């Protein structure tokens, strides 16, 4: 039974559970709903949940565990030294799976009988050629071990399919029967269903947290590997960044950190005032007509992919700044510069800040404004002294979120500020950021075993810590001041 078919059967059983439990509940009180503990629908949902959730959980577990078990079993087919190295092992089992899939395809197309597929040996002619005939291309000739493992794989997979179908169907039917038997006027179906819903909510939030933990852990292990190959003190305090794939690299974080912070700073200088003023205009002064036109227009900017902004930086802003500012005033003649990237990221963040700040300003109760106006304050005094202070925590949160976006931006920096790591104060010089270097250290290389590639993880970890710190700060500020006008 395929997984899809199993899902269909479980769905049918669940719907049956809903209908049956609901009917039984109604029948148990002769249609007098008031004598039931819960509304009939709750009994139905209880049946639905019991028929579906345990079976689906078992199915999911089975699907996760089966490959692991099979892989462990098949390791016996190979000499120990072949399966020791994790990456070699992964490749080997990918081969096994491909051959097994090839045998399946051959049987399905009638090029082999089932018996043949189970019995075929490498000494009876090339398996590779026979599989190629049915459209399964293999990179190298199939070794006897791989073929035997593939045949065993097919066998175990077949058993697995049957086992999983039996297990899930039994669970589904058992759940259904249990739910029907539990149904009765005194059964607290509503409470049970609510417990299940609560469990679902908890599960979702756990998944969100676990993914974060998983990301951090994987970055952390790779970073630690990097620090075994390269001294941490050099990484954090060396002032030079010059990776060299033949060895002797200098992998200092500081120039990249400097570039990141410098570009972010300039972008914030652009986006915060403009975004905030736009928000104040929209929230407090604009008429409804103007607002309904201007707000979507500003938000259009948010929908433009950042690579388009990068192009804008590359062909428009960069040359403009070079020709009209950098060259005339003697700041150098670089087309890509901190200024270019900073300004363009700033533009990118304007709608982000203005739209968040607009919502926050609108959330300040009208009674605050009335109180101030009623004391004879002008509109702008009211905004400056009452509305903005009340909205400040939220606005700070928006600003810090924009800052983490600026710090994490890659595309615009690559195209606007260049890729040269440099420690310089001149904003018209090309510099680069952590994110750009992460990308450039990883492109074209998939072997993560030299400090030059692993440094990407240490960089990523540093970036993560910076943005996490900013976000925590934002959350903390928002939380600390939130209650104030409630």
């Amino acid at each position, binding site marked *: 039974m395929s997984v899809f078919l199993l899902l269909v059967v479980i769905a049918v059983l669940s719907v049956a559970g809903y209908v049956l439990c609901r009917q039984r509940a109604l029948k148990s009180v002769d249609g007098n709903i008031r004598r039931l503990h819960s509304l009939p629908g709750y009994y139905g949902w209880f049946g639905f949940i019991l028929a579906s959730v345990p079976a689906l959980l078992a199915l999911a577990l089975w699907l996760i565990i089966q490959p692991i078990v099979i892989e462990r079993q098949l390791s016996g087919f190979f000499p120990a030294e072949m399966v020791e190295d994790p990456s070699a092992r992964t490749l080997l089992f990918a081969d096994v799976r491909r051959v097994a899939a090839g045998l399946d395809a051959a049987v399905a197309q009638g090029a082999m009988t089932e018996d043949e597929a189970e019995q075929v040996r490498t000494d009876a002619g090339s398996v590779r050629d026979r599989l190629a005939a049915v459209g399964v291309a293999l990179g190298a000739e199939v070794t006897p071990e791989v073929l035997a493992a593939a045949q065993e794989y097919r066998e175990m997979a077949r058993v697995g399919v049957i086992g999983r179908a039996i297990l899930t169907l039994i669970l589904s039917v058992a759940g259904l029967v249990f739910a029907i038997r539990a149904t009765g006027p005194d059964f607290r179906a509503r409470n049970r269903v609510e417990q299940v819903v609560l469990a679902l909510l908890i599960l979702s939030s756990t998944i969100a947290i676990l993914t974060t933990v998983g990301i951090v852990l994987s970055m952390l292990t790779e970073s630690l590997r990097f620090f075994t190959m390269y001294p941490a003190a050099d990484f954090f305090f060396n002032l030079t960044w010059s990776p060299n794939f033949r060895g002797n690299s200098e992998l200092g974080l500081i120039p990249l950190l400097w570039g990141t912070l410098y570009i972010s700073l300039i972008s914030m200088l652009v986006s915060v005032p403009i975004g905030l003023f736009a928000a104040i205009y929209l929230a407090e002064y604009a008429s409804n007509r103007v607002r309904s036109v201007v707000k979507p227009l500003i938000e259009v900017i948010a929908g433009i992919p950042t690579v388009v902004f990068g192009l804008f930086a590359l062909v428009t802003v960069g040359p403009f700044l070079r020709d009209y500012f950098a060259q005339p005033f003697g700041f150098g003649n670089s087309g890509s510069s901190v200024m270019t990237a900073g300004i363009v990221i700033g533009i990118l963040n304007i709608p982000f800040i203005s739209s968040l700040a607009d919502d926050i300003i609108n959330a300040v109760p009208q009674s605050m404004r009335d109180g101030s106006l009623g004391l*004879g304050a002008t509109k702008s005094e009211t905004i400056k002294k009452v509305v903005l202070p009340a909205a400040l925590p939220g606005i700070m949160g928006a600003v810090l979120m924009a800052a983490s976006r600026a710090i994490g931006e890659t595309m615009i920096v690559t195209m606007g500020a260049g890729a040269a790591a440099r420690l310089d104060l001149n904003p018209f010089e090309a510099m680069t950021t952590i994110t750009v270097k992460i990308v450039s250290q990883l492109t074209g290389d998939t072997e993560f075993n030299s400090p030059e590639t692993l440094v990407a993880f240490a960089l990523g970890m540093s970036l993560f810590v910076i943005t996490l710190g900013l976000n925590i700060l934002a959350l903390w500020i928002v939380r600390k001041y939130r209650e104030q006008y409630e």
Partner: protein
Amino acid sequence: MNDMTHKGLGLATQTAKISASGVQVHYGTNHALKDVDVTILDRTVTAFIGPSGCGKSTFLRCLNRMNDTVASCRVSGQILLEGEDIYDRRVDPVQLRAKVGMVFQKPNPFPKSIYDNVAYGPKIHGMTRNKAELDAIVEASLRKAALWGEVKDRLDATGTGLSGGQQQRLCIARAIATSPEVLLMDEPCSALDPIATAQVEELIDELRHQFSVVIVTHSMQQAARVSQKTAFFHLGNLVEFGETGDIFTNPKDPRTEAYITGRIG
């Protein structure tokens, strides 16, 4: 002090501070106030009474143009403050509101410290030259609003952290700190205990010597105790307006009589 009291009372029945005639208010299509004529005398307490939703707050908000902030609201008719039409183009609503202060029906302290709440008006109007003067105004206002004793040790605490009744008195203190000529109070005692209510009523009586006070109230006793003039509103109409004593002892309109004896409302 006594002297002033006499002077104040002497003027009480003569000069009109605000005179409204033919005031109509629409909220969109809802005709909330129909052809209202009221004269608010100088140094007099005027009470607005009437069942919920009859337009008392609406009329009060017309008197300092707070209705300007409600987009759907249209006001017509004439309202004169010392002979000058407040809805005239040349009148700056900001200056008008500095003269005609307001205590709102729902307490709305700013999310600032208690001190800053009260100091807000004096600061924006530049009423003081130094911190000592400002401190004096803040203290005097809080004392008048019967709140000083409760908050004198925590003037830096936020105003929104006070209880509902304390917030109401804070808003009263905030409004009188700017020394308006007319003070509009929309149910200023709705959340107060009897003692604080008595203190606020005392304050109103005291304010009468310098200002005109308009108070909206649901308590007949309060209207009878503090006001000299009473206006009774019903379904957007001004039903009866006259001396408080007359309204309560000898109402002319049957609706007024029904309301004050508790049969409608």
